[in-house]
Each structure stands twice: as structure tokens, then as C-alpha cells.
């Protein structure tokens, strides 16, 4: 293993995040705080408890997950797309670095950034609502697994994208709607049966549900189903990346 290379790529990406801290960290934290103020403090006080949890506290895991997913995808997609766009990718591809090391560097950095954002949002949430975390280890496990899995997805998008527009396409048109419809702001038990069954096809539901269970022991589906779905999604993303490097798709003619 070329650990020096993994560290070099990882630190390069982390330094880029630090250099653009306003865009990388402050912006998602600020927008999530607005959600807490509007849905948690203002509207939430007029909504009944869901699964025995105050509405303001109920949306905390979902909002963290919303940012975790979008930030993981955006960070990883931009991280690999920008060197392709600028042409500096030649250096990574000509270095004695394997596909695993490249992925560890780029995806590891993207996941680190999004997990940090998730933890900062979690800390910020304590300023607006009262809540406790029933299973902190499970909470951290879901945070890490989801951050890493969606960073893998972002990496794939960054390799696939041919322009900045495509880079934003999947997070905006796919991930954000799926997150909103995946139980971020409600329990799917509140939906009519038909829409409840449709919601079970949404993979993000399992992430939000598992994450919420770690907080309040209340979930739409079993914790083990959530965990299995997360791991399955990770395996699919890893297989896709393995295929990309094996065939050189979009990176090596």
C-alpha cells in the first residue's frame, strides 16, 4: 500500500475544504439551523409528538442525514471531477497509486468532511431542541457508513459527469427528493397504506430510519434491515467503482 499517496490525496482534499470553509461547512450548518428554527421551534411547537418524540427532536436525525447525503455526494463528486476538469488528474493516474488508494484518499476525505458537518449540525441542534441519543455507538456507525457509502456514490458521479451541471444533477434531482420523501420530516406510518408501501422502495428511508432509531429507539423499519440496506448499497457502489477502474471508463482511454 502507498500510504503516503493516500495521505497526500486525503490532506489535499481536507485542505481544500479548510480553504473554502464558508462553502464547505458554514453554509450547510446555516441552512440546517434554519430548518430547526422554522420546523423545530416555530411550527414544531404546534405539532403533536411522533412515536413519543417531540417534533423538533424527531426531525434532528433526518436533517443530519439530509446534509450528510448531499454533502457526501457533492464533496466526493467535486473532489474527483475538478482534477478531471482542470487536467491535474494526470498526476494521480501516472503515480504508483492503486484504485483502492485513490478511492481511500478522495472518498475518505469526502466522508470525513460530511461526517464533520453532520457532527457540527448535531451540536448545533442542541441549541434549538432538547434530545438525547439512546445508542451513540450505533449513531456514529450509521453516520460513518452512510457518509462513506454516499461519498462512494459521489465519486462515481464525479467520474461520470461531463460538466458542472451534471455534477449537481443527482444531488438536486434524486437525493434531495428521496431524502424529503424518506421520512426526514415524518414517520411513514402517518402516510396512507399505498404511499407507505411506495416509501419502502426509497433506499434513503432505511438510512433515516436506522439513524433515528439510534437516537430514539423509534424507527419505520428494523435496525438490522436498515444496516443491511446500507451495507448492500455500499457493496453496489464499490462494485461500480471496481468496474470503472477495471475498464478505465471515463478516466483511461
Amino acid at each position, binding site marked *: 500500500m502507498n500510504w*503516503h499517496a493516500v495521505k497526500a490525496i486525503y490532506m489535499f482534499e481536507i485542505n481544500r475544504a479548510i*480553504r473554502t470553509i464558508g462553502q464547505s461547512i458554514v453554509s450547510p450548518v446555516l441552512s440546517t439551523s434554519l430548518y430547526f428554527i422554522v420546523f423545530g421551534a416555530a411550527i414544531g411547537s404546534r405539532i403533536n409528538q411522533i412515536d413519543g418524540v417531540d417534533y423538533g427532536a424527531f426531525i434532528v436525525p433526518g436533517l443530519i442525514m439530509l446534509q450528510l447525503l448531499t454533502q457526501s455526494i457533492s464533496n466526493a463528486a467535486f473532489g474527483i471531477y475538478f482534477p478531471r476538469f482542470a487536467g491535474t488528474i494526470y*498526476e494521480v*493516474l501516472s*503515480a*504508483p497509486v492503486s484504485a483502492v488508494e485513490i478511492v481511500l484518499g478522495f472518498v475518505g476525505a469526502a466522508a470525513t468532511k460530511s461526517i464533520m458537518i453532520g457532527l457540527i449540525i448535531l451540536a448545533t441542534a442542541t441549541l434549538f431542541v432538547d434530545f438525547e441519543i439512546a445508542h451513540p455507538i450505533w449513531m456514529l456507525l450509521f453516520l460513518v457508513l452512510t457518509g462513506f457509502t454516499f461519498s462512494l456514490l459521489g465519486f462515481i458521479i464525479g467520474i461520470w459527469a461531463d460538466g458542472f451541471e451534471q455534477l449537481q444533477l443527482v444531488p438536486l434531482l434524486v437525493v434531495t427528493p428521496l431524502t424529503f420523501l424518506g421520512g426526514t420530516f415524518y414517520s411513514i406510518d402517518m402516510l396512507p397504506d399505498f404511499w407507505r408501501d411506495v416509501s419502502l422502495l426509497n433506499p434513503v428511508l432505511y438510512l433515516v430510519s436506522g439513524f433515528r432509531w439510534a437516537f430514539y429507539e423509534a424507527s419505520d423499519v428494523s435496525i438490522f434491515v436498515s444496516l443491511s440496506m446500507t451495507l448492500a448499497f455500499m457493496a453496489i457502489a464499490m462494485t461500480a467503482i471496481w468496474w470503472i477502474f477495471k475498464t*478505465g471508463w471515463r478516466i483511461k482511454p
Partner: protein
Amino acid sequence: MSETTQKPILSIENVSKTYEGGYKALKNVDLTIQKGEIFALLGPNGAGKTTLISLICGLARLNEGRITVDGHDVKSEFYKARGKIGLVPQELTTDAFESVWNTVSFSRGLFGKPKDPTVIERVLKSLALYEKRDNKLRTLSGGMKRRVLIAKALAHEPEVLFLDEPTAGVDVALRREMWNVVADLRQTGVTVILTTHYIEEAEMMADRIGVISKGELILVEDKNELMRKLGHKELTIVLQEPLQAIPDNLSHYDLQLAEDRMSLTYSYDTHAERTGIATLMRLLAEDGVRFRDIVTKQSSLEEIFVGLVEDGQ
């Protein structure tokens, strides 16, 4: 150890490359480069120069033939092979917001070497970049950026340096500056392989020259030997009085009478057994043609190159 028995630093055996869509960019290329050489790969745009470098450096997939760097296969032993290579690309591709020091340090890490400020300092000083070490790359001139790319390629102390069109699109002053950089590299023992379509560049720097055209390596030769073998010379005889026509007894000579009829040009092969110059001069004297000056001109590498590529086509 003699040059012939020395293990080559780069060995290319029967390498071909066909891109998706069926375009064959390289056809059965064989090439061996010895350690410490400066080798120039000449060829027109689209000849296959960059494809060959891309295959060696891992930027394109090798599916036909074998390439080794210092004995290490670029596919099965890519860690070892690539670790010995530094690549300076044709395009000025830099991370605009990074500092010179950071970007060169990044390159060293990427190639598996631990941090070593002494090496980075030495490389930057050798390229006159040390004073600019804290500058962001976007603030540097084109020439400085080109130097940064060389510094990045040298940061892990490679044994082979590839310079892909190092002076493409740069002004004359910068081109000469690059030549000086390569001359300095020669002193350090680094093997330099450069691609160019500037003949002057190859003529100034290279020990050996390869000519590639339409994906085929049509010639590899010692530079001086190439010029000696393929070089034609021209002898221009400046006359004292205008000559109306070439005398009949000189018709078997390859002679051209200038439009102003004040000079005769004779083309001859430098490696022919007899150049015919002595007889020509005697016959001119017998015909009463008086001359006041004689000028000889060696054909340039450019003329040789154009001739080779045209022959290839």
C-alpha cells in the same frame, strides 16, 4: 559495463494501441532507452507521441505489447515502474489555489515518498522557484508554471523524466530557458525523454532521435549519425559574371542556376564515395566560368525530418 550490455532504463516491445472506435494510434513500436540518455521523439501532431508516453506512464491502457521501466513491467509491477518516472504534461495543468511548496510536496507524497523538505528545497532552488515557494500558482507566469510542473515531476527523484512538448506554445526566451533546464538535468544523470515537433529543440538537446509518423516509429538514430547519414549538402558557387545556361558537359551534375544567373547550386550526398566537387570545379574552370565565392550548407534536421515523414506517407 558497455552500453550494449547495460540494462535499459526503458524498454518498449511490440507496443500497439487501438482506441475505442478502432483508431490505431501506435503500430508495433519497439524502442530501448539507456540510462542517462536524452532522447527526442519527433513527429507531427497526431503521430502518436503523447499516446506512447501515456502508455508508459499509465495514463492510457496498454493492451498490446510490453513496456518495462528499469526492468519493471508497467502493468504487473506498476508501483515500482511508475515510481521511477516523472511526467511533465503538455498542458499547463496546475492547482491554481495551491502554493508552489504545497503542490510540489503533494507530488512527492503521491509518488510514495515521505516528506522531505530538503529535497523539495533543492528541487525548487535548481529551478529558480525557491523564492516563489509561498506564491499561489495562479499568480505565476506561464514560464514559472512550466517550471513548477517540472519541479512536481522531480519531487520524488525519478530516474526517467518525460517532457511532453515542453516548449509548445511558449516564446523563444522561455524555450531557451527550458533547454537550459534540460541541460542541467543531464548533469544529474536523469534520463530525459522529450517529445517535440520543434526540430531545433531535438537538435539542441538530444543524444538520440526517434521519428514517429502515423503511429509507426520509422527511425531511431544517434543525432549526429542521423545528420551525417541523411544530411545533404549544398555547394553554392557565386559567379563573377552572369551565366546564360549550364554548360553541356556539366549536365549530368545536379546543378541549379539561380534566377539572376549569378550563382550555381550543386546538391550532393555527404556520405557518397565521391562528392564530385573536385571534377566540377575543374570542368567549370575549363569552360571559363569564373567564380568569386563558394558557400556550403548542411541540411538541417528539420529538412531531414520533413523528408522522412513525407517518405513515410
